[in-house]
C-alpha cells in the first residue's frame, strides 16, 4: 500500500513539475499573459515557482516513503 501511494505521489509530483514549468515559461512567452500585463505574468512566475518547490518536496517525501521498509 505504501509503495502504491509513493508511486502515485511521485507521478502527481511529476505532473505538477510539468505544470510549474509551463507556468514559468508562459510567464515570459505567452501572448495572453503579456497582453494582460505584468501582474498576470508575475502571478504565473510566482505560482510556477511555488508549484515547482512543493512538487519537489512531495517527490522527495514520496521517494522516502518508497524506500522505507514496512515495520511489522
Amino acid at each position, binding site marked *: 500500500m505504501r509503495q502504491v501511494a509513493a508511486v502515485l505521489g511521485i507521478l502527481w509530483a511529476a505532473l505538477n513539475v510539468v505544470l510549474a514549468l509551463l507556468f514559468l515559461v508562459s510567464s515570459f512567452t505567452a501572448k495572453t499573459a503579456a497582453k494582460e500585463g505584468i501582474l498576470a505574468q508575475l502571478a504565473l512566475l510566482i505560482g510556477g515557482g511555488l508549484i515547482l518547490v*512543493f512538487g519537489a518536496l512531495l517527490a522527495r517525501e514520496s521517494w522516502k516513503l518508497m524506500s522505507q521498509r514496512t515495520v511489522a
Partner: protein
Amino acid sequence: MRLAAALVALVGAAILVLALVTIAAQQASGVQPFSNELSDNIFFARTIPFVLGAGVAFGMLGAATAMRARRAKPGEVRRFSRATVIGHWLITLGFLLALPTGVWQYLGGILDVNAPISLYLFYRVHYIGAAIILFSVAYFLTYWWQTGSRSLLPPRGEWRRHWSAFAGELPPQLGRIVGRALRVEPIRSDSPPGQFSYYETAFSFPTWTIAIGLITVTGLIKALRYLAPVPGPVLWGASTLHVAAMVLLVLKVLDHLRYVFGRWPLVKAMTTTWLSEQYARARNMG
C-alpha cells in the same frame, strides 16, 4: 435520532435524483437552441441548490452516526469519525476531477492551444467534480455544526500560541520569517497541541478553509451568470480569484500529500479512522 437523520438523507437523495432527471429531461427536449457547452453550464447551475441540499441532508446523517461512535479501543485512539473519512475521500474525488480539468481550461487559454478532445467534455468533468465538492462542503459544514466539533481549529484564545508553536516546528530560518509574518515568537512547545498537530491547526486547516471557501464562492458566482445577470466587474473579479484559488489548491494538495506521506499512520487513520495510541503519544497528540 439516527433513524430520523437517515430519513432526511433519503429524502435529500430522492429530491436530488428527481431534480437531476427533471432538469436533464427539460434540457434534452431540444426546445432551447443550446450548444453542448452552454447546455452543461445551465444544467450545472440549475442543479446546485439540490446538490447543496443533499449535502446538508447527508451531513446530518454523518453527524448522527459520529455522535454514537466509540472514542477508543485497546491500543488505539479514534482520529476521525467514519463520516469524516467518507467526506474526505468524497472531496478528494471532487478535486481529482475538478482540479486537472480546471488547470487545463486555464492553461489552454494562456497557451492558446486546443486539446484533441472537445472543450465541453473538460467542462463536463469539471462540473461533475465541482458538484461533488459543493456536496462535500455542505456535508462538512452541516456535520461540524451538528456535532459542535472545533477540533480542527485552535481552542478559543489560543491562536497565537498555536502560531508560535507552528513557527517553532519549522526550519529555524523559515520559522523566523513565518513568525515575523504572523507577529509571534517561534517557540518549541512542550504542551500537547490536542487531537491535531500545531502545523494542522495553525496552518493546514485554516489555509484549506480559505482556499476551498474562495473556490466555492467564486465558482458559485461564475455559475450564477447562467441563471441571473451578474455585473461584468464582479464576474471578472470572481474569475480571477477562482484561478488564484485553483493555484492555491494545487499547492495545498502537494503540501498535504508531502505532510501525510511523511507520517504514514495518519494516512492509515484516514482509511480505518484509528490511530495507534503509541504513535499519538509519541507525537504528543491528545
